[in-house]
């Protein structure tokens, strides 16, 4: 299984980073207009998005039954007759993503489906808990059976440029994850500047994150294409520097099939084909799956679908 062992802290790795925001926005705006997907190709790319989804519920009113329903959808994200029509079998989402207290329920519900369970931890979403409690939460989630841990970084450290302190925190979190793979949520909507985003990406990767992830879904601005472009370029530079491949996960804000295509085009154009595999690309989403399924339904039947005819998560 792919892992990022991380490196020693190396601020030189991003000391020369220069990011021109208007240029990033132009490229992000222009990328989706440069590629178009039709018919079978569109269907294939939509299904690929499905297998990359971390199907998520992170609400205060989550219950074990609610999580079980989500897991059922993760195991069978697209109606079997639709999948049969396009000749695709064994499709699941990339993972389910829940709070630590729901991990056990999720594991039970997913059984031997092979769908991994991801758990947020470290005082999600704000991360403003004492470090020892945040680390304890990771250990708890792992203990409950989580395969992947989505940690949140301390935005304050990034905003103050305390990169060394941030590195140390994330390093400890990675250790606490043990055999579970770690996603580092940067909360880019709170880091604001794209140079901050890039630097925080490098720190998270150096500290051993297996994924870097844009958002908790709870910030004012979540995943955007410009922010994702900057993070992808950081992933590319880190690979050039170290040889390690780090995965990317946009989360929050991807709601439509068109979004799913746009982000995949971004991955392919900036990082290459490999970053379209669920091992290197995940989409944190809940409502997105519904739209993907509706589009698949349209592809198969030629009729526009109604949401009430498709099974909900």
């Amino acid at each position, binding site marked *: 299984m792919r892992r990022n062992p991380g490196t020693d802290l190396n601020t030189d790795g991003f000391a020369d980073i220069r*990011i*021109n925001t208007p240029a990033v926005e132009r490229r992000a705006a222009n990328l989706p207009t440069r*590629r178009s997907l039709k018919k079978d*190709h569109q269907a294939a790319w939509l299904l690929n998005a499905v297998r990359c989804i971390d199907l998520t519920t992170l609400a205060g009113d989550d219950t074990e039954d609610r999580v079980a329903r989500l897991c059922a959808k993760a195991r069978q994200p697209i109606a079997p007759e639709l999948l049969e029509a*396009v000749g695709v079998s064994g499709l699941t989402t990339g993972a389910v993503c829940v709070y630590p207290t729901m991990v056990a329920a999720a594991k039970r519900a997913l059984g031997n489906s092979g769908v991994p369970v991801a758990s947020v931890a470290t005082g999600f979403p704000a991360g403003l808990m004492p470090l020892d409690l945040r680390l304890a939460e990771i250990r708890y989630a792992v203990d409950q059976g989580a395969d992947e841990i989505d940690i949140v970084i301390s935005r304050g450290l990034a905003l103050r440029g305390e990169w060394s302190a941030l590195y140390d925190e994330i390093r400890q979190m990675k250790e606490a994850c043990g055999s579970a793979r770690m996603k580092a949520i940067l909360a880019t909507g709170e880091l*604001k500047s794209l140079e901050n985003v890039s630097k925080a990406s490098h720190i998270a990767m150096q500290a051993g994150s297996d994924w870097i992830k844009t958002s908790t879904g709870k910030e004012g601005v979540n995943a955007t294409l410009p922010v994702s472009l900057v993070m992808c370029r950081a992933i590319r530079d880190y690979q050039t520097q170290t040889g390690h491949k780090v995965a990317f996960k946009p989360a929050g804000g991807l709601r439509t099939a068109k979004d799913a295509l746009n982000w995949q085009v971004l991955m392919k154009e900036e990082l290459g084909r490999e970053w379209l595999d669920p091992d290197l690309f995940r989409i944190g989403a809940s409502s997105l799956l519904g739209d993907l399924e509706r589009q698949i339904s349209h592809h198969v039947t030629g009729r526009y679908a109604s949401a009430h005819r498709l099974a909900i998560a």
Partner: protein
Amino acid sequence: MSRVSEIMETMEYGPSVEDSSAVREWLAKNGPFGHFIGGKFTEPGATFATRDPSTGEDLAQLSQGSADDVADAVKAARKAQRGWAKLSGSERARYLYAIARHVQKRERFLSVLETLDNGKPIRESRDADIPLVARHFYHHAGWAELLETKLPGYTPLGVCGQIIPWNFPLLMLAWKIAPGLAAGNTVVLKPAEYTSLTALAFAEICQEVGLPAGVVNIVTGDGDTGAALVSADVDKIAFTGSTEVGRKIAETLAGTGRKLTLELGGKSPFIVMDDADLDAAVDGVADSIWFNQGQVCCAGSRILVAESVADRFERLLQTRMNRLRVGPPLDKSTDIGAIVDPVQKDRIMSICRAATDDGAELIGGHPASGCFIAPGYLRNIQPANPGMQQEIFGPIATLSTFRTADEAIELANNTRYGLAGSVWSESATVATDLAARIKAGVIWINSANMFDAAAPFGGYRESGFGREGGRVGMLEYLAEPTVKAVKEPAVTKPAAAPDGEAATTGVIDRTAKLYIGGAQKRPDGGASYKVPGGLAPLGNRKDIRNAVEAAAKATKWAAMGGHARAQVLYFIAENLSARATEFATRTSKAEVEAAIARAFHYAAWADKFDGANVQAKTGTLVNVIPEPYGVMGIACPNTQPLASFMSLVMPAIAMGNSVVAIAAQDDPLPVTDLYQVFDTSDLPGGVVNIITGVKDELAQTLAAHDEVAAMWYVGDQADLTRVEQAAGGNLKPVWSPTNRDWTKSDAQGEIFLRHAMQAKTIWLPYGALPAGSGGAAY
């Protein structure tokens, strides 16, 4: 394995081809095409085929316009012009607005037609060309509306002949027709023979909106048709195309008094500093030389990258280049479409061969069957290599390195062209400095190939003259308010031999000299000629050469800034005033008063002829800056020596130019004496250089000098023709203001300043934070 499963493995994009059936039906129904003259399509004459360059398939037959066709079109335009000009600005605006709207409503049709005919990717015609066409007509609808308010006293020119290239067919049509019509002119437009179809579709839009017959006329055909239009009875020629053809047109029009604007070739620098966002710069390359198959006159085709980041930049560039998709133009996932014609493809490949023969290494750039060439660039290339000098006009850039900002500028300006430049640096200090120092009409900071109807576009040097877009673009389609003409007295032939007639006696002999580089110089030929008050030096071509050399060195004058230049001009007025009586006895009181007034007037203007910040694009500061030409040549009329000299030289130097002036031939001594005034007024040496002698001969040498960037000539029509012909060499603009009473108030004003500067448009996108997280807006 199902098809979908297979694609889930490869994750290829697959075909996504825009439907062209509506366009093909239109072609079948309407072809073969005649010309559009007087509101109607003519019967097709002798025809030639226009092809889809991506397949070689014939799309339609077009008529080869004859001189008679052109004459008919000009006649129709002439007939329509008075009525069109008589409409109120607001009425003309409604037509232009309707055209803009109809272009939008036919957006898909026009995009597909453009792509079929030209070979450019549908993404580009859909997202760049056609929206900009609509934008151009909207913007100029506004100009029609506001013309009388914003430019009072200006009148239409009459009939404008317009010749456009094949790289942005409909967009270039819009750039030409929109301002022409807004100003009250009627037009005869000749599209390029490779790409006439959207112009013919545009003719149908003109019919659809009910544009009066004859206001827009379109004659198709090749270069012969264009030549016929250049020789036809029109009041202006506007040309966009190659520098060679532009030069021929300038020579043909010499002495005709017809207005001319030229938008020609380029080999624009693309400077990447060590503090640039390199990814952004790589995107910029893709938007420049890998846009429209590199068939872009303003493309950043000479990439200059700081040595310290060159390796990394090149690695990123190659990665990006390898992900560009060369393919069918109508496929929505195509980045690089077809070159417009096999002739062009051969031309591109032959320049690449010459470049590699000369030691350059070509990365990428492989030709494929049909009109396709993969994107590429030439590395290990030196300024002397033909690949670095010639405009390749294909998807092939050059890449070379520099050590310092100074060297970057030296390399950037080492070209006969001056159309555009791109500068990449995250330092505002560095970027704006480079923008100021690149000799080009359009500078993009941290961006490339941005266009807008409000932002003037056009070149320095051999990239042409005149601007398209914005206020300065409108002025190119308007006649300046007329002044009362006065006939210039004919010159007497200067005699270098003594004639034995007594001159003044009883005073110490005075020796007038040439004034070059701030010093008194004897004429190179060692000869003088007799003029009122004594003997004047008989200057020759070597004196012109020396004077231009001195003027070219006076660069700090422009750098002093408006306020400091104003102080010098005020000082000139002061010192001239102190010697008013003496100068008056040699000329007249009126002349001296006018001379003092000119110095005062242009001192006032020196720090007030402002540029503009134009509303081109949100999130972008677009500044239009008046820049001096550099060295200007001025041939003064053979009359009112002091007043005419000061009326012409003061505005030129107020704008920061240095000047080589030929004084009134028959009476130059009041001017040669001015050196004492200049010397005592802190005017730096070389800013004003005075040559006396045979005006016609000196003016021709001056006009032909490659270092002289602009020429003013007042005088005889036959001589003007020769001056304009000579000026065609380096394509300098020639302005020939009417000879007038130079003591009158209409011998001064803003119009003189406008001809003493060239507009530079600097684009600076700003934005600290991504959209959605705040950010200010100007």
